[in-house]
C-alpha cells in the first residue's frame, strides 16, 4: 500500500499584530487569503504550527451560526447546550436566558423541537445565543447576513454596541459596507500574509487596489495560466451597468495560431462579489466552435437570466482538449438596484434566491 503524498501549504504565515482593547477590527482579503484560518487560530479551533498567540481574555466565536444546535432538541434545551459550547457557565446562561429569548423573538416556541422551526427562527435563535456571550474578545465570521432585513439591522446594532462596550471584536467579511459601519480599524490579508493593518479606509483602499492590480496583471497574457497556444486579446462587457432584466453581452477577440489543429471552444463564468459562479456559458452547449487559423471576434449574449443587483466579474476560458487561455477577472459589470418586476412590494419579496427570474402566476379557479 502506498501512502498518499502530502504537499504542505501555509494558509497563514508570518503574521504579527497587536490589537488594543476595545478595538473592532475588520479582517478583509480575497478568497483564500487566510482570513478564516486566522480566525480559526485565534479562536483555537485549529492549532498553529509555529508562533505564539497571546489572548488577554476569553474568546467567543460566532463562526457559524447554529453549529451547536441539535434539531431534535427544543429551543430551550438548545440554548443551554449551545451556550455551554460557546463557553458560558450555567449561571451565565440562566442570567442571560430572558434576553436571549427576547432578542430572538421565539418565546412561543421555546418548548418546540427546533427541527420544526422555520429556517428564519432557527437562525435567529442561534444568533441570539452567540450574540449574548459575555467574552472579552468576540470573533465573527460573516454571520450578520442572516435572517430578514429587520433582524439584520438589529444584529448589526447589537454588534456595534458590543464594540462600544469596550470589548474587542474581530470581524471577517467580504462586504466592505459592514466593515465600514462596524469596525474601528482593519487588516488586509494577502496570500496568508498581513499586508496592511491600520484604518478601515486604508485597508479597503488596499483591497480595491489589489483587485485592480490583479485585473491589470491578468490583462497581460504572460501572467495568465493555460498553454498559451491561443490567447484572448480583448474581453469586454458591452453594458457596464445594466438593469436586472437586460441581456448581458460580452465581446471577445482571440488571436490566430495557424499551427493549431482542430477547432476550439470558449467558456465564460460570471461570478458574484463573493466569488460564487452564478452561471457558466460554454460554447460547446450551443455547438459554436472557432477556427484557430485566423483571428476570431466573438460575442456572448446571456438571455433570460436576471442577475440580482450587485457587482459581477467575468472569467473567460479558451479551450480545446486542455485550457489554452484562462483569463480571470477579464472584466466586471454592475447590475443596478432596480426591480425588474411590474409591482412594488416589501423588500422581503425579493430577498431570497441567487438570481431573479421572469415568472408569472396564474389563477386557475
Amino acid at each position, binding site marked *: 500500500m502506498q501512502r498518499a503524498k502530502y504537499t504542505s501549504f501555509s494558509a497563514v504565515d508570518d503574521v504579527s499584530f497587536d490589537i488594543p482593547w476595545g478595538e473592532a477590527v475588520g479582517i478583509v482579503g480575497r478568497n483564500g487569503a487566510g482570513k478564516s484560518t486566522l480566525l480559526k487560530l485565534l479562536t483555537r479551533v485549529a492549532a498553529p504550527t509555529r508562533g505564539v498567540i497571546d489572548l488577554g481574555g476569553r474568546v467567543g466565536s460566532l463562526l457559524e451560526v447554529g453549529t451547536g444546535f441539535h434539531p*431534535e*432538541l427544543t429551543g430551550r434545551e438548545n440554548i*443551554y447546550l449551545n451556550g455551554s459550547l460557546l463557553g458560558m457557565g450555567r449561571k451565565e446562561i440562566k442570567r442571560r436566558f430572558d434576553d436571549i429569548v427576547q432578542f430572538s423573538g421565539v418565546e412561543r416556541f421555546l418548548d418546540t423541537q427546533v427541527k420544526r422551526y422555520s429556517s428564519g427562527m432557527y437562525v435567529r435563535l442561534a444568533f441570539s445565543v452567540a450574540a449574548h456571550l459575555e467574552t472579552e474578545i468576540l470573533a465573527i465570521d460573516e454571520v450578520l447576513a442572516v435572517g430578514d432585513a429587520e433582524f439584520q439591522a438589529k444584529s448589526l446594532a447589537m454588534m456595534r454596541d458590543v464594540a462600544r462596550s469596550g470589548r474587542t471584536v474581530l470581524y471577517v467579511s467580504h462586504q466592505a459596507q459592514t466593515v465600514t459601519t462596524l469596525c474601528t480599524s482593519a487588516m488586509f490579508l494577502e496570500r496568508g500574509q498581513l499586508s496592511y493593518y491600520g484604518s478601515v479606509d486604508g485597508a479597503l483602499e488596499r483591497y480595491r487596489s489589489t483587485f485592480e492590480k490583479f485585473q491589470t496583471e491578468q490583462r497581460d497574457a504572460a501572467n495568465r495560466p493555460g498553454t498559451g497556444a491561443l490567447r484572448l486579446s480583448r474581453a469586454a462587457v458591452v453594458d457596464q451597468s445594466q438593469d436586472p432584466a437586460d441581456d448581458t453581452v460580452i465581446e471577445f477577440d482571440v488571436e490566430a495560431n495557424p499551427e493549431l489543429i482542430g477547432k476550439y471552444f470558449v467558456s465564460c463564468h460570471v461570478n458574484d462579489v463573493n466569488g460564487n459562479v452564478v452561471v457558466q456559458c460554454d460554447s460547446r452547449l450551443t455547438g459554436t466552435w472557432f477556427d484557430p487559423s485566423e483571428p476570431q471576434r466573438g460575442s456572448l449574449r446571456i438571455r433570460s437570466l436576471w442577475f440580482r443587483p450587485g457587482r459581477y466579474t467575468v472569467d473567460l476560458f479558451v479551450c480545446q482538449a486542455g485550457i489554452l487561455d484562462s483569463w480571470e477577472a477579464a472584466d466586471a459589470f454592475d447590475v443596478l438596484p432596480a426591480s425588474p418586476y411590474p409591482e412594488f412590494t416589501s423588500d422581503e419579496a425579493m430577498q431570497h434566491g441567487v438570481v431573479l427570474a421572469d415568472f408569472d402566476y396564474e389563477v386557475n379557479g
Partner: protein
Amino acid sequence: MTRTIIRPPGRLDMPRWRELWEAREVLYRFGLRDIVLRYRQTAIGVAWVILQPLASAGVFSVVFGQVAKLPSGGVPYFLFSFSGMLAWNAFNNVIGRSSGSLVSNQALVSKVFFPRLLVPLSGVISVLIDFAVAFVMLVVLLFLYGVNPGWPILMTPVWLLITIMLALGIGIAASAITVKYRDVAYFLPWILQILLYATPIAYSLSAVPGNLRWLFQINPLTWLMEMVRWSTVGQPLPAAWEFIALPLSAIIVFFAGILVFQRYERGFADVI
C-alpha cells in the same frame, strides 16, 4: 480576567485539566442531550433501559445455560450471566458511544472551540444511567433468587470506575484515530465481538480447559469479571495479585488513551 497563551502543541501533552473543569457544563449538556435523544419519539421510552439487559441475559441463559449447559459456579445461570452482562454492557457501551463521537459531532469539532476531550467523555453519562437501572434490577434479582453476596457488593462502584476507565481509554483513543482513519469504525466492533466470547462472561473461568487458561488470565477483563462476580453473586475471592493488576491496567489504559487523543487533536479541525 483570564489570559490564554496559545503555542503549537507538543508531542506528549497532557490536557489542560483546568480548562476541562471549567467546561464541565458541556459534559453535562452532552450527556443530557444523549439521554433525551434516545427516548424522544419512542413509544415505550425509558422502559427500553429495563428491557434490554433482561432480554440479553435471557438469551444468554437459554443459549449457554440450557442448550450448551455451561457451568455457572453454582449460581442460577440467569443471575450469573446478568451480573456478567452488567459489567460487559457498561464496558461495551462506553466504547461504542465514545469511539464514534468525534466524527458524529463533526460540525462542532471543525467550527467551535471547546475542550474536545469532552466529546468522547460525555458518552459515559448515559451509560451510567443504564448501569444504575440495571444494578437496581440486579439487586431485585438477588432477592428473588435468595442469593446474598454480603459486604463485597459495596465494592461495585470501584469496579464500575475501573470498567469505565478501561473503556474510556480505548474509546478516547479510538475516537481520535477515527477522525483520520475510519477503519476503526469497522475494526472495533469486530474486536469487541471477539472479546465478548473470549472473556468469561457467559461462562465461568473454571469451565476453560487448563492448557488454555493462561490465555484468559492475561486479559484484564477476565480479572474484572472475577471481581464483579465475587462482589455481586458471591463467587470465590479472586487472587490477590489481580487486586493490584486490575486498577493498574485501568490507569495505564486510561492515560494511554488520553495521550493518543492529545497526539491527534491538533489535526482534528483540518482532517475530520
